[in-house]
């Protein structure tokens, strides 16, 4: 049983009129992993996650979530999963503790909610009305609600949208802690950095189809993309001095800046050595590596944003 995938979907389809929002997506999610579904807005992420949660009825394909079919066993499945939805709300005048107390009462099995408030930094807000909370506080309350039934599987849909970078980082730490507590995490995001830092495996979805599925490292490596070393010098340097270095593919002078492209992991060492050897003073040296953003660009021919 423990080797069984937590989620298994095969040929998932969901159409709205003529538009196929999800068009034959198949994948498996393993127990205890953080699985990310990434793609631009409108790619079919939310439709997919909502078919898994049983909020939407898939039109075709096989779906198994914790061994249940969301289309047939909705109530039994919802006992065992937690869900933070992309668009939802609570009554403005409900207090934080009342919301947790209320949602805990919906489940056959629930955990004490005070520790959840503590972990999410909401203890001081326990008597605050939902309508008076900031965006980040509301989001944290929704996470607490998603965990109040001690679910085996938690869904987070666009969790960090609208959070500032610092809040986003602490959210990542929290999600890692959720996974460490033995839960499986399924999330969607359109922040590639988030998927890269947080997810064990990433499924890239575009136009309702699965474009790629692997660990972030493998996806980036599979791209065979060049690394870049960028630096500035007081006088223009001769690009020729770098071309002979091992792994260098091309050199691009841009005014006083120089960009050296290459595939070797030691690229930066080679470039610095060459500069030192010729006693060339340089500053602002940095390396740029391919990331999931480049993977997405390569897979779909489009920027993620825009």
């Amino acid at each position, binding site marked *: 049983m423990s080797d069984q995938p937590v989620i298994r979907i095969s040929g998932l389809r969901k159409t709205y009129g003529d538009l196929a929002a999800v068009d034959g997506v198949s994948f498996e999610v393993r127990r205890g992993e953080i699985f990310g579904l990434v793609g631009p807005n409108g790619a079919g992420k939310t439709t997919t996650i909502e078919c898994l*949660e049983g*909020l939407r009825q898939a039109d075709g394909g096989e779906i198994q979530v914790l061994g249940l079919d969301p289309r047939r066993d909705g*109530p039994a499945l*919802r*006992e065992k999963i937690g*869900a933070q*939805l992309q*668009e*939802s*709300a*609570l*009554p403005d*005048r*409900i207090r934080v503790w*009342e919301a947790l*107390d*209320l*949602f805990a*009462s*919906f*489940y*056959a099995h629930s955990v004490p909610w005070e520790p959840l408030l503590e972990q999410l930094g909401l203890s001081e807000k326990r008597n605050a009305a939902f309508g008076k909370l900031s965006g980040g506080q509301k989001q944290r309350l*929704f996470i607490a*609600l998603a965990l109040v039934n001690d679910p085996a599987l938690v869904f987070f849909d666009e969790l960090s949208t609208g959070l500032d970078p610092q809040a986003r980082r602490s959210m990542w730490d929290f999600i890692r802690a959720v996974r460490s507590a033995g839960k499986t995490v399924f999330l969607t995001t359109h922040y590639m950095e988030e998927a890269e830092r947080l997810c064990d495996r990433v499924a890239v979805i575009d136009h309702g189809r699965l474009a790629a599925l692997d660990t972030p490292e493998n996806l980036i490596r599979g791209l065979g993309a060049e690394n870049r070393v960028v630096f500035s010098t007081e006088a223009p340097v001769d690009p020729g001095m770098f071309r002979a270095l091992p792994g260098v593919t091309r050199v691009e002078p841009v005014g006083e800046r120089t960009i050296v492209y290459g595939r070797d992991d030691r690229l930066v060492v080679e470039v610095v050595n060459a500069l030192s050897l010729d006693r060339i003073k340089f500053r602002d040296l940095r390396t740029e590596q391919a990331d999931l953003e480049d993977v997405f660009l390569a897979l779909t021919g489009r920027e993620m944003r825009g």
Partner: protein
Amino acid sequence: MRGFWKLALTELKLYIREPIASFFTLAFPIMLLVLFGNIYGNKPNAFFGGLGFVDTSVPAYTAIIIGTTGLISLAISVASQREKGVLRRYKATPLRPLAFLGAQVITLYLMTAGGMVLLILTGKILYHLRFAGNVLNVWTGFTLSCAAFFALGFVLAGLMPTARSAQVAAMILYYPMMFLSGAAIPREVLPAGVRSFAKFLPMTPVVNLLRGLWNGDGWTGHGGDVLFLAGITLVFSLIAARTFRWE
């Protein structure tokens, strides 16, 4: 029905915290009673068939409360919870639709009953309100009236896409009823033409039934009112069951 009682308790607290809703349910009817009670008093009067103004107004104003909770509060609250995504969030839990609907009904029923009790107490204390009926009969008539108006409210909540449109639709139905059914203005004052038109408004049988039962009528003279209200309850509950949506 897990979650039902906790949700009902929460809804009750939320209702009381909503100043406009609790004002119109609890305070506004008392204000009407005190305003007109001070003008007309509660002396027995041949115009009201030997009853006082307050004796006829307490059951009639109860119809106003039922209209406020059943039509306006219910339709706006459910439509707004759907519009904002509160119902979506409930849908992602094991909470059953019937438990949600039941919690709305019991909350509104208790609030309506609370409004009626305050009205009766005000009438008793300030105007020596008379009661010639049977408590069980009045309670039954009150419950049937609530059932009819809650069914109407649920249909409105299901049909109207937003809180705003639910509010507008509820107001359009509510105000003519309030003034023409004999609820806000005693039917004895209304012209015959208005009264014959008002026979078709759902608040009219509520006013007739509650006034009658309060002042000692049996059920026999009110078969038409009971049938009208039971019919509304049945038909609109069936429609509501088909039109209710979580999102």
